[in-house]
């Protein structure tokens, strides 16, 4: 059964009344936003610890052996890169990856970050003891910037599972935040990692899911 001709006329008339610009190259803007996000995260890392009376920047992690720090950082960067590759629609598609992949990212990132950090517990003596709420706060303050860049890069179009896509982006933003926080925090003890490094990623994932439902869902036009 063919659609009626009147439907075609109606559609063509409606789109004529609502002009939309032609395709633009989004790559420069995406790169610009990524750079901006990196600068903003660095600024937060530099200034936010001072709110808690701490030293800002990488100097705070001076008590950790440099080799251990480099390995921890390398692992976190690898996790952030791979989760970004999995969660963003890099392929030639207007749709995000399958729900299973997105769920894997959303659940896997907090777990892997925690496991990776705890793995280094015992490799060196922790320079001091903290409960982890400072790391929690810094992570939450740092996360909006990468999330904004990722939301732009994801093309804001997901008619199938906007909540899952948002959760995955929240987790990826958390992974990049973890990279920055690892530059600052030298601790790898279980309790601290759970409260300061895993819990905020879980919060970011849930917040991403809530935002994703609002941002990526289909709206009637």
């Amino acid at each position, binding site marked *: 059964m063919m659609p009626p001709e009147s439907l075609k006329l109606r559609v063509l008339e409606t789109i004529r009344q609502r002009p939309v610009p032609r395709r633009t190259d989004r790559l420069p803007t995406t790169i610009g936003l990524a750079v901006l996000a990196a600068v903003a995260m660095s600024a937060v890392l530099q200034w936010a610890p001072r709110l808690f009376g701490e030293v800002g920047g990488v100097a705070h992690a001076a008590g950790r052996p440099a080799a251990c720090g480099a390995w921890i950082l390398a692992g976190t960067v690898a996790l952030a890169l791979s989760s970004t590759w999995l969660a963003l629609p890099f392929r030639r*598609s207007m749709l995000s990856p399958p729900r299973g992949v997105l769920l894997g990212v959303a659940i896997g990132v907090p777990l892997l970050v925690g496991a990776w950090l705890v793995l280094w517990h015992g490799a060196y003596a922790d320079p001091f003891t903290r409960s982890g709420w400072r790391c929690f706060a810094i992570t939450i303050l740092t996360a909006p910037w990468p999330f904004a860049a990722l939301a732009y890069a994801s093309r804001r179009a997901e008619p199938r599972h906007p909540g899952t896509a948002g959760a995955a982006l929240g987790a990826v933003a958390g992974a990049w935040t973890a990279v920055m926080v690892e530059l600052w925090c030298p601790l790898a003890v279980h309790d601290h990692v759970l409260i300061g490094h895993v819990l905020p990623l879980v919060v970011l994932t849930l917040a991403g899911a809530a935002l994703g439902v609002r941002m990526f869902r289909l709206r009637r036009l």
Partner: protein
Amino acid sequence: MRNACNEVSVQVVAQVALLSDDRSDVDAGASRADGAMDRYACGDEAAFVDLYDELAPRLHRFALRWTRSRSAAEDAVQQTFLQIHAARHRFVRGGAVTPWAYAIIRRLLLDLGRRGAREELRHDLRDAEEPTTAPSPDEALHRRRVEAEAQRDLAFLPPAWREAFELVKFEGLSVAETAEVLGITRGMVKIRTFRATAALRKAMARRLRDPSERMTRSDPGAPPPGETREKGVPT
């Protein structure tokens, strides 16, 4: 035994053919639609008409099968094209428009909540422009009965299986495209399509064994006998 199996297979294939007899050359159509969308995204306004001509009949048929309502199907098709138009500036270079369009219309139909309110196929949905080479009364009766049985068998399938089966068999989407539309992996599409086909074949075999069953199975919401479900979800 082997002959009986072959007969069952032939009948299932015939049912599928009956349900998808107006299927076009979908692969060529998909590539034409992709090209038209690419041109439209690049600024060729006239390409939207080509895109509409390629996609609208398929989307309309899909929506009609889903809603059984002409006005709802037209509304869904219109909304889908408006969504595509609104995302014109974001359309990825070399991207496939067909799975995207199906994903949009599927979401719109789900949101409309009409999936649960499937009505029986009304005969007034027949296209007035359809060729009226009237078959003999016996042929017409047989065709209508087979169609009704096929529709009922489909209605018995779990929604997840039915969606994958319809997209692959009726809409002619590839496994990869269906996976994109449904947001699942290709392997899962294959599994669901296989299970749907097996369930249809099983239902047909059961009916052939016991013709009186077609009079007793009237609740399309209930699982067919022998099908296993865990907490209401088909395994």
